[in-house]
């Protein structure tokens, strides 16, 4: 496998027609992590969504590996190389954690056995609620279920939007350990966070967003 590489050039993004930031440049290679910094509403979520290809930038390009968008402003599809944990948990309230994860992994084109899902849920301290509808879980439990994808996925690029929201101290430590392991294994992580995430083995670069 070639070494993963995420390259961003002259990226300008906005929400709707409102411009949020201009001319962002950075490059991340396998084994690097970056935290997106900036005030509230300066486009952190927008940047992650743009990197994921969910929305088109106003200008500039995102390159992944050797893939190059057809033209400026076109989203580049990362497809199976990406694990995106968004602001929302992507869990249906009427389904149980294992049912939700099963569908999510199938959507990610990953074949994961029920046993593997159970095992990860147990590691995250969710074995007692694994067969309970998600709507009856606490906010922290739901977030952990959603993050369980990080243990099941093999994607080299992770985009995490506030992964630690609603997590307690222990879960946060577990998450940090997982991120450390992913980066040590040659992956790339881009994340936003309000909580302090202390990654012991990873040097975290900062991507500063300055409002325009």
């Amino acid at each position: 496998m070639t070494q993963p590489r995420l390259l961003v050039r002259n990226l300008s993004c906005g929400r709707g027609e409102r411009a949020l930031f201009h001319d962002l440049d950075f490059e991340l290679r396998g084994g690097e992590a970056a935290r997106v910094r900036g005030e509230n509403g300066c486009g952190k979520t927008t940047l992650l969504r743009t990197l994921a290809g969910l929305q088109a930038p106003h200008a500039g390009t995102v390159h992944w590996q050797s893939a190059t968008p057809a033209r400026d402003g076109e989203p580049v599809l990362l497809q199976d190389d990406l694990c995106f944990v968004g602001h929302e948990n992507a869990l249906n309230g009427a389904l149980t954690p294992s049912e939700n994860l099963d569908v999510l992994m199938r959507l990610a084109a990953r074949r994961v056995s029920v046993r593997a899902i159970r095992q990860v849920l147990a590691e995250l301290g969710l074995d007692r609620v694994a067969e309970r509808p998600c709507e009856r879980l606490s906010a922290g439990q739901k977030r952990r279920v959603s993050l369980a994808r990080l243990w099941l996925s093999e994607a080299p690029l992770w985009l995490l939007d506030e992964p630690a929201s609603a997590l307690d101290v222990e879960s946060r430590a577990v998450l940090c350990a997982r991120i450390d392991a992913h980066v040590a294994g040659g992956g790339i992580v881009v994340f936003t966070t309000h909580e302090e995430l202390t990654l012991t083995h990873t040097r975290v670069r900062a991507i500063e967003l300055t409002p325009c």
Partner: protein
Amino acid sequence: MLWLHRFGSLPYFYRISRPIALALAVPGVLLAAYGVYGGLVEAPVDYQQGDAFRILYIHVPSAWLSLFGYTSMAVAGFVALVWRLKLAEIFLVAAAPVGASFTFLALVTGSIWGKPMWGTWWVWDARLTSELILLFLYLGVIALHNAIESPRTAARACSLLALVGVINVPIIHYSVEWWNTLHQGPTVTRFGRPAMEMDMLVPLLCAALGFTLIFGWLTLWGMRAQLLWRERRSRWVKRLFSDG
């Protein structure tokens, strides 16, 4: 290709849109005026319909433009979706109210014409019914555009809707015709006569061509306003208006 790229540049388009609009407006109005004059004054009285047939010179161009307008919107929608060309989005948005106006005119004039011919304002005749549904298709595009706040998303959504609509237009027309022949007997043919007198036909063609040019002019007019609104925060628009 280079030419297309240059034409796609918004400031350039804004600058040349006014002369182009004039170049469409002058011959368009002249041709339409000649066609209408020919239809109202010079064409001989129709032996079946009397002078009522003179409504044709506004009705037929309107009906033609209602279809032409929707088709051109769908083409623009395709271009907007595939190549993300802003100008195509703006065209689609600006053409919708103009096309809807002509569709409305086709309906109203058809109905006014129907009154002396059939003795009633409205019959569920295949053409009128299809035209009515076409009007709803236009109104759907306009309503969708008004409902979505972000202009870019709105235009892209309308592009897709216009494309879906244009695939449906022939199906709708065929189904309405099927329904009509099945249950009401053959449609009343109004201008399907094989040979039209030359002095009736020439003004009609002039009117149709003239109104098509007018359609282009009005759409350009709308595009200028739409373009200015969408680019109101950009540097080139501000520069345009700061110098007076």
